[in-house]
């Protein structure tokens, strides 16, 4: 019988933020992603280098250390294509470190869309292209095949599971959301409804979010959380069960939770304590799927994500500005593709990154909770304004290329 184990999965991503691109730039310059002010929070190079120092470098160092001292330590990562592109330019040492980690054979890369997009909900052709582009990039860079899929923001529904099954993935990741699980526990392997071979791993959101969201919160009753306490929580959760899926953003370490909260030391200590007990181990996502048989079938007819208390897509598609922005983008697909202009196609795809519409979210403004609005823009309306100016420039480039059609979409 297989040992019980934790499944650690971390997601690394950085978008190409759009600069303050005004109507006076439209049809004049096409440099959407290069904010001239290096120190502003829209300058992608500056942000990437900052987060590399605060999070990617120290966390990679810690993971390499854990791989070296614990033979049973394993971890799964998803790294978006737009992250890799930026790392190649501004922090190649971070990629070298990932390569060393992967060469141990104990670090698995999870598949996703190259552009961290919501293409699944708009265009299957474009979606599959982005999944394939990501697989190719991972193969070229790290020499490994991806076998397990996760979609942007851990968005998931039955038709996505069916797609992933038919596409040949052996596993897929989703949120372990109570209204779906009901009396069931996320700490098992499941089978998605209506599929043949694929298996489903569901995030244990309580234990994951204790680290990802609550760890440094001094108003949290369990602050400060130490490794012993957390280890006992995980042990309690896994009693008589198989796995605990701890899924979180890579940037949890050092960026969302700063180093001075003690997050790095905590994580190292927790892994040590967990592996001290010989009945415990760590699994990569593929290993967990191979080790256990599904205990039940799970159906999610509606899309569930790992975001907010609603666990839905409202932070990305909840208002009309967000819906229109993506409608404009995806309605250009055919015209963009038949230009065969690689630069134009790449720009169009970078604009599909879900962060752009996230910055247009107004639900916190309407709730009066402006402090919940994390964005490099002054308001959701500014985010939309710059984006729409860029959309018009794309239309202009299409117009110049095809010499047909109007500029109104």
């Amino acid at each position, binding site marked *: 019988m297989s040992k019980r184990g934790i499944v650690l999965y971390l997601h690394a991503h950085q978008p190409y933020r759009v600069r303050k691109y005004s109507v*006076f730039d439209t049809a004049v310059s096409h440099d959407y992603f290069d904010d001239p002010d290096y120190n502003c929070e829209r300058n992608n190079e500056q942000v990437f280098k900052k987060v590399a120092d605060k999070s990617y470098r120290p966390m990679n160092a810690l993971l390499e250390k854990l791989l070296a001292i614990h033979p049973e330590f394993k971890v799964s990562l998803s790294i978006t294509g737009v992250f890799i592109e930026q790392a190649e330019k501004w922090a190649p040492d971070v990629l070298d470190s990932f390569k060393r980690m992967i060469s141990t054979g104990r670090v698995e890369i999870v598949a996703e869309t190259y552009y961290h997009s919501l293409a699944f909900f708009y265009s299957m052709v474009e979606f599959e292209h982005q999944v394939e582009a990501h697989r190719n990039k991972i193969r070229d860079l790290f020499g490994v095949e991806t076998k397990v899929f996760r979609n942007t923001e851990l968005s998931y529904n039955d038709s996505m599971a069916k797609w992933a099954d038919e596409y040949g993935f052996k596993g897929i990741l989703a949120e372990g959301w109570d209204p779906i699980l009901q009396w069931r526990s996320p700490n098992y392997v499941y089978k998605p409804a209506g599929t043949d071979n694929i298996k489903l791993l569901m995030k244990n959101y309580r234990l994951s979010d204790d680290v990802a969201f609550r760890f440094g919160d001094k108003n949290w009753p369990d602050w400060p959380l130490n490794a012993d306490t957390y280890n006992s929580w995980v042990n309690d959760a896994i009693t008589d069960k198989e796995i605990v899926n701890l899924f979180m953003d890579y940037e949890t370490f050092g960026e969302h939770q700063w180093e001075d909260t003690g997050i790095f030391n905590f994580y190292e200590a927790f892994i040590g304590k967990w592996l001290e007990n010989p009945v415990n181990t760590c699994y990569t996502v593929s290993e967990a799927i191979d080790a256990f048989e599904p205990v039940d079938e799970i159906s999610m007819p509606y899309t569930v994500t790992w975001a907010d208390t609603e666990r839905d897509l409202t932070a990305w598609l909840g208002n009309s500005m967000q819906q229109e922005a993506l409608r404009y983008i995806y309605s250009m697909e055919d015209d963009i593709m038949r230009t065969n202009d690689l630069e134009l196609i790449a720009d169009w795809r970078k604009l599909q990154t879900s962060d752009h519409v996230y910055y247009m979210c107004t639900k916190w403004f309407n709730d009066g909770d402006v402090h919940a609005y994390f964005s490099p823009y002054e308001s959701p309306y500014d985010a939309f304004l710059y984006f729409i100016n860029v959309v018009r420039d794309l239309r202009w480039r299409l117009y110049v290329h095809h010499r047909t059609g109007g500029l109104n979409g």
Partner: protein
Amino acid sequence: MLGWELWPNNSGGLGVACYHMSKALAIAGATIDFVVPYTAEHDVIDYMDVHCATKLSPLERNGLGAYDGKTVIEKELSKADVNNLKDMRGVQKRYVQYVKRLAKVTQPDVIHAHDWLTMEAGMGAKEVCDAPLIVHVHATEFDRSGSDSGNPLIHEIEYQGLMMADRIVAVSNITKNIIVEKYGISADKIEVVHNAIDIVNLNDGYYYDFSTYRYLEALKNEGYTVVLNLTRFTIQKGLVNFVKAAAKACTKFDKLVFLLAGDGEQRDELIRLAADLGISDKIFMTGFIRGKQWRDAYSVSDIFVMSSVSEPFGLTALEAAHHDNAVILTKQSGVGEVLNSVFRYDFWDEDVLADQLIGIATSYVLKKSMQEDVKKEYGRISWHDAAWKLMRIYNDMQRVALS
């Protein structure tokens, strides 16, 4: 409470604010004697006693002019002739005398004076009854004078009033910062109480009349977007930058018209500027408007811009939100501290304003989102919250006075 104007008698923003603030204070439990410098009927006011300090009509209260800086006010109060009610300083001297007598008789718990116009009376009242003085700042001479230095005597009166006050209330953090930086007053002494809007008052059976701005309605049918700037045409309001931004926007998107509602000393300059820039046919000047024309100006418009170089608060932005406008504010406008669903720009940044105008005019969803979202927001800003803050300040000061 000491105020130079009070709605509904020929009042500007200060009179409207005083009316609603007093009303909310009365509901919160305050008993108010309100002193105005003129004689008029205040039939609609049954929640406090209104005292008339002179026999002048509301129109005559400023002697020869309003506080637009045109009237030269240079006399010390001691040199003013209390019998010369054609002179602003004469009226103010009479007002001070009246307030002092009233304070002696009524022995108020707190004296609450609005702006420099009544600060001398506030100080006078404090002398005779020893009650704590609250000076409420809606605008300073720095705001009124725009970039130039303003009237030195008014500065002096403001400085003395701010020094003598036991507590200062500012209508925004912008105003608070001016009081700290330009008058050297300690920030600890100043509380910010934002103004609000009385929605009930705006829902008084008003209906929009399409014929008021028939030509603009016709342009809207042709796809034009109407941009409103409703204000006094003075340097403080940043209209030169606004007109330049309008011209810039028109180079990229032609279907914009600009409704400049109001009047003031810059009117001719603005007309010349629009002609120089070649957008005269896109600028509509209404002159001074009130009543229905004033409400309809909001209703005909799609976008409201507050272009002020320095705006302590800016109640018109809330009125515009009520009338379904998308709102654009300068970062130098205090009302921006209570609204989130708006665009902001620095008053000099014409490119940014032009971009924002075109963005709204050319994107239906952006326009609708901003109009709907700001309308949800402004309704939460209530005079009752302002009144409770003021009541707390009153109570704190009485406690200090008693101990």
